[in-house]
C-alpha cells in the first residue's frame, strides 16, 4: 500500500519541457521530500503523481497498477495544497467530511471518522466554524484532516508550511512528522526549504530544472553530495566552494568545505584571513572571512561563542577528511 513508481515520466507544456524523462521509486511508508529551487518543477511532478496534470509520456504505477490514465479521484491519493484549498462555504466538519461524502460513505461512519480526525488534530473546538474564521495553522490542520479521513495510499503535500509564520512552521513540521510516525503511510512532500527536507525526510529527491540531481537519505546528501548543485543546496549555511590553486592541490577543479568543517584559531592555521562580518548567536558563531584562497568570503561556523570581530585576523584549517572534490563538470570525485 502506497508504492509509487515513475518510469520515464516526461512533462512538457506546449514546447517547453518542464520535466525531462525521469525515473523514481517511492516505497511504501516512505517520507519522500522533493526539494529544489523555485520553478524547478517540484509542484508539476507532484501534480503528475496526483493526476491533476497528464504526463506527456511515461508511466506512473501506484501499488503495481498502472495509474497513468486514472483521474485524480481514482488514484487513492490525498493532497494538501499550499493555499490549503479549503471550501470556504463549508464548516470545518463539512470540509473534512467532503471526500467521504463523495465516496458515498454512510453517515454514521463519516461522523465517526470526522470526529476522530478532529480530535487528533485538536480541531474539536472549531468544528462548526468556517475556514475564514480560522488561523493559518488551524486551516492547515483542517486541510490535513480532510486528507487523513480518506485513509489514502499516500499523502501529497505541496509546500504546506510556506504560508505559516516561522514559529508555527517548526511546530507543524513536527506534527506532520509525528503523523507519519503514527500512520506509516507514504508521504510525498514538496518544499524549497532544505531545512524542512533535512529534518523530515527518509529520502530526499533534489530537483533542478526538472532533473533529479540526487536521491538519498538526508545524511547521504550531506556527507556525499553527487555534484556541486547538491553540495551547494543542502546544508546551512552553504558549503564553501573554492576553485583555483587551492583546489589544484587536491587534484580537483573545485573543492568544497562546509562552514562547520573549518577549524578556527586566532593564532595559527592553514589559511590566513580577515573577519569581515561576525554573527554571534550565543550557541554558534558565524564568521565571514576574507582570505586569499578565495575571492568570496569563506563562511566558518564555530561552536558557542568565539570572540573575534570585524577586522580581526583569524586562521582557518579545513578537516582533510571532510573536503569534497569536484571535477570540471561539477561532478564529485571519489
Amino acid at each position, binding site marked *: 500500500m502506497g508504492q509509487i513508481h515513475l518510469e520515464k515520466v516526461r512533462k512538457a507544456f506546449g514546447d517547453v519541457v518542464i520535466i525531462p524523462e525521469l525515473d523514481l521509486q517511492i516505497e511504501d511508508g516512505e517520507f519522500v521530500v522533493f526539494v529544489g529551487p523555485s520553478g524547478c518543477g517540484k509542484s508539476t511532478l507532484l501534480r503528475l503523481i*496526483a493526476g*491533476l496534470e497528464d504526463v506527456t509520456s511515461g508511466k506512473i504505477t501506484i501499488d503495481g497498477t498502472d495509474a497513468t490514465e486514472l*483521474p*485524480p*479521484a481514482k488514484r487513492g*491519493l*490525498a*493532497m494538501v*495544497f*499550499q*493555499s490549503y*484549498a*479549503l*471550501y*470556504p*462555504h463549508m464548516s470545518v466538519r463539512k470540509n473534512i467530511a*467532503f*471526500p467521504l461524502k*463523495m*465516496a458515498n460513505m454512510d453517515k454514521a461512519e463519516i461522523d465517526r471518522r470526522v470526529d476522530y480526525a478532529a480530535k487528533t488534530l485538536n480541531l474539536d473546538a472549531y468544528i462548526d466554524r468556517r475556514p475564514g474564521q480560522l488561523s493559518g495553522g488551524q486551516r492547515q490542520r483542517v486541510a490535513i484532516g*480532510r486528507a487523513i479521513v*480518506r485513509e489514502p495510499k499516500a499523502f501529497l503535500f505541496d509546500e504546506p508550511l510556506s504560508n505559516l509564520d516561522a514559529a508555527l512552521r517548526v511546530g507543524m513540521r513536527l506534527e506532520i512528522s509525528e503523523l507519519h510516525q503514527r500512520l506509516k503511510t507514504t508521504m510525498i512532500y514538496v518544499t524549497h526549504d532544505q531545512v524542512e527536507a533535512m529534518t523530515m525526510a527518509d529520502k530526499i529527491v533534489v530537483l533542478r530544472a526538472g532533473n533529479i540531481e540526487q536521491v538519498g537519505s538526508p545524511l547521504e546528501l550531506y556527507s556525499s553530495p553527487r555534484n556541486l548543485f547538491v553540495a551547494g543546496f543542502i546544508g546551512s549555511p552553504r558549503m564553501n566552494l573554492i576553485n583555483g590553486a587551492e583546489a589544484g592541490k587536491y587534484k580537483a577543479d573545485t573543492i568544497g568545505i562546509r562552514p562547520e568543517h573549518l577549524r578556527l584559531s586566532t593564532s595559527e592555521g592553514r589559511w590566513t584571513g580577515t573577519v569581515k562580518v561576525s554573527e554571534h548567536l550565543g550557541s554558534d558563531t558565524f564568521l565571514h572571512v576574507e582570505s586569499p584562497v578565495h575571492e568570496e568570503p569563506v563562511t566558518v561556523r564555530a561552536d558557542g561563542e568565539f570572540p573575534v570581530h570585524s577586522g580581526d585576523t583569524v586562521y582557518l584549517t579545513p578537516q582533510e577528511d571532510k573536503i569534497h572534490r569536484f571535477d570540471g563538470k561539477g561532478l564529485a570525485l571519489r
Partner: protein
Amino acid sequence: MARRVTTQKKIVTTILAWFVGLLIFFPILWTFLTSFKTELQAISIPPVFLNFDWTLENYETIQSQSNYFHFMLNSIYLSLGSTALGLIVAIPAAWAMAFSPTKRTKDVLLWMLSTKMLPAVGVYIPIYLLFVRFGLLDSRLGLIVVLFLINLPIIVWMLYTYFKEIPGEILEAARMDGASLGKEITQVLAPMAVPGIASTILLNVILSWNEAFWSLNLTTSNAAPLTQFIASFSSPQGNFYAKLSAASMLAIAPILIVGWFSQKQLVRGLTFGAVK
C-alpha cells in the same frame, strides 16, 4: 478623500449635487406623483406638485380595466425564463473558460462578445419569418429563447470574470476528494460563486425586463410583456396622464428596486470587465 473638506464647501456641493440628482430624477418623481392624481389634476395648469388629493383610483383602474397582471406575469416569465436558460448554458461554459483555458479561450470570449454587437435588424427578418413559420410569434417560449440568446454573451462574460477570482486549487482539491465534474460545479464552484451568480441574475433580469426591440416586434398580446403594455398607451387615448403614470410606475418599480441593489455589478457586467 483623505483631506478635510471645509463645511462651507461641503454645503455648497451638497446643494448642487442634490439639485442635479433631483433634476435627473425629476421625470420619475413626476410620474410617481401624477400616478396619485385625478386625470384633471394631472393636466391642471399650472401643475400641482404635492397639494392635490392623493388617490389610488388610477392603480385600481389599471388593474381592473386592462389585464395588467397578464403583462406583468409575462415580464416575469420572460426575464426569469431567459435568465434561467442563460445560467444553465453559461455556467459550464464559464467554468471551462476560467479553469481550463486554452490558447483559443480569449478568442472565443471576444467572439461571443461580438455576437452581442450584432444589430437586431441584421437578423430580425429571418427570425420574424421563422417565428411566423413555426407558430412562435407571440409565444413566450419563442421570446424567451431570443432573450436568452441576446443576453448569453453578457452572462458568460460576467460569470467568467467572477469565476476567475476563485482559486483553481479549490476545485482541484474537490477533484482529489473524488468529486465528479457535476459535483465539482454544483457543490463547490456554484456555492462559492453565489455573489457573482446573483449579480449576473440581477443584471440579466434588468436587461430582459427592459428589452424593447424583440419584445415589441415578436409579441402582440398573448406573450406581450410590460414593454408592450406601456407602448399601447402611445395611442391618442393614452392622453390619460394619471393612468399612464400609474401603469408606468407599476412597470418600472420592481426593476428600479432590483437595479438600485445591483448598481455596482452593473458597471462590471456592462463593460465586460473593461472598467472595474
